[in-house]
């Protein structure tokens, strides 16, 4: 009843091409952001550290891959490695120039990842689909090899791992062992909101249309004067930028230190599944995908024993673990059958139905 288009007239092209044309949507997004910030003050540290921070980090990486695979239609399996480039670049920068604020380096490290991403995107002019995925697989293996074999990247640290030195913002530790989950959550949340907003601006403008044009019909796009190579490389660069920042956040604001193994092929697949299940070509879908794949297993781990115990069934942690895999797997298949275009499409259909509710049309 409250969700209606009626009475909202657009009198300018600016208003008509707004990203959230509906007033209710704008209010809704505002409330969600407000709630996300409020969570920092009411949530316990388990919720922030083990659920919300990783959820946001994976959402950001999914947005990155979604720009490439969802919007531009270029399949990539190098996400994990591009995240790694961001993390290692950030580590090098923050240890080489400790006086510069770490937030600056987190944003700058994305550019390194963008450059590497664009480099490995060069084959995309000639090959597409599964073949391009295989070409990006080369990036995955080559970069991971670099992470292991080049000790300079970890400042010749004997353990070969990245550690998170103490860094502060306005005197409050945000990176390092003494940074509280609360402050780290606030930093991650702010960065993710900012970058999501920028991504949304990009995909709704000229550049986004060029990306989608390349995805939907590359020959026609080229005949309209869209340069295929530049457009694809831009998608690779922007996508890798997001992945790189996500990688830096993952190591320094979530794990607090990591080894090369974090950025392996499994990570790439993990992000790809989030994108596919959330919805290719949808920013909000990236959040849905990350929630389903990352948060759902955690929720099940908590909820399942609580459901089973009243029936007198007490099961071990290992059985819970197996059940979790089975349920998540089944749900993924269920969602893909119900809506192959992902959770984002379900969300869109739901909103359209709500607009006319309680009438069918």
């Amino acid at each position, binding site marked *: 009843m409250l969700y209606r288009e009626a009475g909202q007239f657009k009198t300018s092209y600016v208003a008509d091409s707004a990203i959230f044309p509906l007033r209710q949507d704008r209010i809704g997004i505002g409330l969600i952001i407000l709630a996300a910030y409020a969570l920092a003050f009411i949530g316990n540290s388990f919720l922030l550290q083990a659920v919300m921070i990783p959820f946001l980090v994976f959402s950001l990486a999914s947005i990155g891959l979604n720009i490439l695979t969802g919007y531009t239609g270029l399949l990539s399996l190098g996400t994990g490695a591009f995240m790694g480039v961001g993390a290692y670049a950030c580590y090098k920068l923050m240890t080489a120039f400790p006086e510069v604020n770490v937030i600056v380096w987190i944003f700058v490290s994305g550019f390194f990842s963008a450059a590497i991403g664009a480099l490995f995107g060069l084959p995309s002019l000639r090959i597409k689909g599964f073949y391009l995925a295989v070409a990006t697989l080369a990036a995955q293996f080559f970069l991971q090899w670099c992470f292991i074999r080049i000790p300079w990247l970890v400042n010749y640290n004997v353990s070969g791992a990245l550690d998170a030195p103490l860094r502060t913002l306005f005197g409050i530790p945000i990176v390092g062992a003494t940074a509280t989950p609360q402050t780290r959550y606030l930093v991650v949340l702010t960065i993710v909101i900012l970058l999501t907003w920028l991504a949304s601006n*990009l995909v709704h*403008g*000229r550049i986004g249309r060029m990306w989608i044009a390349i995805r939907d019909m590359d020959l026609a796009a080229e*005949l309209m004067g869209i*340069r295929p190579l530049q457009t694809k490389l831009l998608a690779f660069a922007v996508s890798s930028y997001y992945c790189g920042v996500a990688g830096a956040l993952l190591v320094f604001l979530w794990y607090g230190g990591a080894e090369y193994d974090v950025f392996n092929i499994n990570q790439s697949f993990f992000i790809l599944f989030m994108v596919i299940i959330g919805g290719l070509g949808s920013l909000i879908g990236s959040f849905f995908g990350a929630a389903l794949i990352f948060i759902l297993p955690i929720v099940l781990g908590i909820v399942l024993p609580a459901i089973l115990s009243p029936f007198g069934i007490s099961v071990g942690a290992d059985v819970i673990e197996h059940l979790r895999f089975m349920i998540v797997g089944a749900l993924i298949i269920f969602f893909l059958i119900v809506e192959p275009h992902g959770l984002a499409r379900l969300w869109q259909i739901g909103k359209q139905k709500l607009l006319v509710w309680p009438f069918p049309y």
Partner: protein
Amino acid sequence: MRAPDNPVFAKGDVLLAVENVSLSFGGVKALTDVSFDIRKSEIRAIIGPNGAGKTSMLNCINGFYYPTEGRITFKGVKRPKMRPYEAARGGIARTFQNVALFKSMSTLDNIMAGRSIKMNSNFFWQLFRHGPAMREEVEHRRVVEEIIDFLEIQHIRKTPVGRLPYGLQKRVELGRALAMEPELLLLDEPMAGMNLEEKEDMSRFILEVNQQYGTTIALIEHDMGVVMDLSDRVVVLEYGRKIADGTPAEVKGDQRVIDAYLGVAH
């Protein structure tokens, strides 16, 4: 208005000249020694039986293929080997035999995408969707709305084109090509698969584009009625060779054309 049987058919200077063009793929000769020209502001039809090389000819003109022999001169300059996007930036737009729209985008976004080459606000402003980026967006939206009005597709402005019926998709595709404000518009079977009413609408749009904006149009079409009514001059291809060239009336009376279409008694 057009004078179909005017013997002096030249409407203006030569915009594009095809000289002795041959195109072969390995041993297959798609085009053999074809020469014709397209003059400014005329409607030029390319006809011929199936497999005559009409689409190959269009592909040469917009840079998909580069002729094996011969040359193409556009606006008085011999065309170097180029990519299709360069031809597009040079002012050649095209629609396809099988609709090649961006299916997931709305009508509006499809036509807006057609204006990509006209837009040049930089990445930084695009990131913030502000300042020059937004001004440009609005300015081009205004042009796109004019095209939408012109083609009478206001009601499907925000519909994803994948959901539209075929006839409307063809119309959106024409709109997308018009958004490029081309000097030369190539239409590959714009009426294929349409019913009479849709054909009439499409013919009207083609004539209006030609007359209002002075756009030069080269079209491939199988419906002879449409070709004879619309075009100023017709070139006829058969098995990759040019067999006739002239006004619709001349071509209609040409014995080789009649033979090509109806067959010859052996």
